């Protein structure tokens, strides 16, 4: 049965639109998390500081490297455990994977080559810093609950 007059069509349209929107109003991405934001900021500072020492033998810093690897893994697991958080989880996965070429890859290369050159460290630090910024920017751009609105920039 078709609605042939304009009024009925408008009524059907409005009803369909409201039904569609009601059904589809669930968010498609996780809300802002202050814990996730803090992981990003803290790990950026710690990682860049550690990278600064990569001119020295890896064995002198093995414990610090192990500690930061654990913290990076925690950040990844925290992201992975949140619903609707695939984008941030994928970011952390690329960031920490030793087969890739950001902080996880940098630490693996330092370990395998024992020492790295200053110009290479400086260039890598710039890229890794920007990579952390991308994670932080995504988190801080998410929709916040009222209680989170004043906590961060």
């Amino acid at each position, binding site marked *: 049965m078709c609605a042939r007059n*304009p*009024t009925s069509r*408008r*009524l059907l*349209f*409005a009803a369909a*639109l*409201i039904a569609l*929107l*009601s059904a*589809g*109003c669930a*968010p*498609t*991405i996780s809300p802002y998390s202050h814990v996730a934001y803090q992981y990003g900021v803290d790990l950026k500072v710690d990682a860049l500081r550690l990278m600064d020492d990569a001119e020295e033998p890896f064995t002198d810093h093995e414990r610090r490297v192990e500690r930061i690897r654990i913290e990076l893994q925690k950040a990844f697991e925290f992201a992975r455990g949140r619903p609707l958080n695939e*984008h*941030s989880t*994928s*970011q952390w996965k*690329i*960031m920490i994977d030793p087969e*890739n*070429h*950001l902080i996880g*890859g940098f630490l693996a*290369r330092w370990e395998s080559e024992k020492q790295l*050159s200053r*110009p*290479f460290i400086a*260039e*890598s630090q710039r*890229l*890794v810093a*920007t*990579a952390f910024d*991308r*994670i932080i*920017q*995504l988190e801080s*751009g*998410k*929709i916040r609950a009222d209680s989170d609105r004043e906590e961060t920039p």
Partner: protein
Amino acid sequence: MTLTELTDRLLEDLEAAFREALPQIRNAVLESGREFAHDMRHDLLRWQELAATGAISKEDLRWLVQSRADLAKLTALRDAGLARVRIDELRGRIARTIAGTVIDTVGL
């Protein structure tokens, strides 16, 4: 307000919401693309110079290029995630517009 006026007003409000939100999404993606292309070009030129002077090895250069590619993936994920946030905001606004218009019309 008649049903015709209600749906017309709804459509006007929805059009206004789209008109405001869609250029924001488009501009954010274009800006990000421009920034990426600019930074990539500068990085490659600098790394070529560093490799030419021997400051970094060929292996370092190859590694940095791959690192830049990984960074591009993180940037794309950020942009895709932020586009979702904007779409969620737009949907919320549309739902509020519809609810507001209907409530106004019914006189609640």
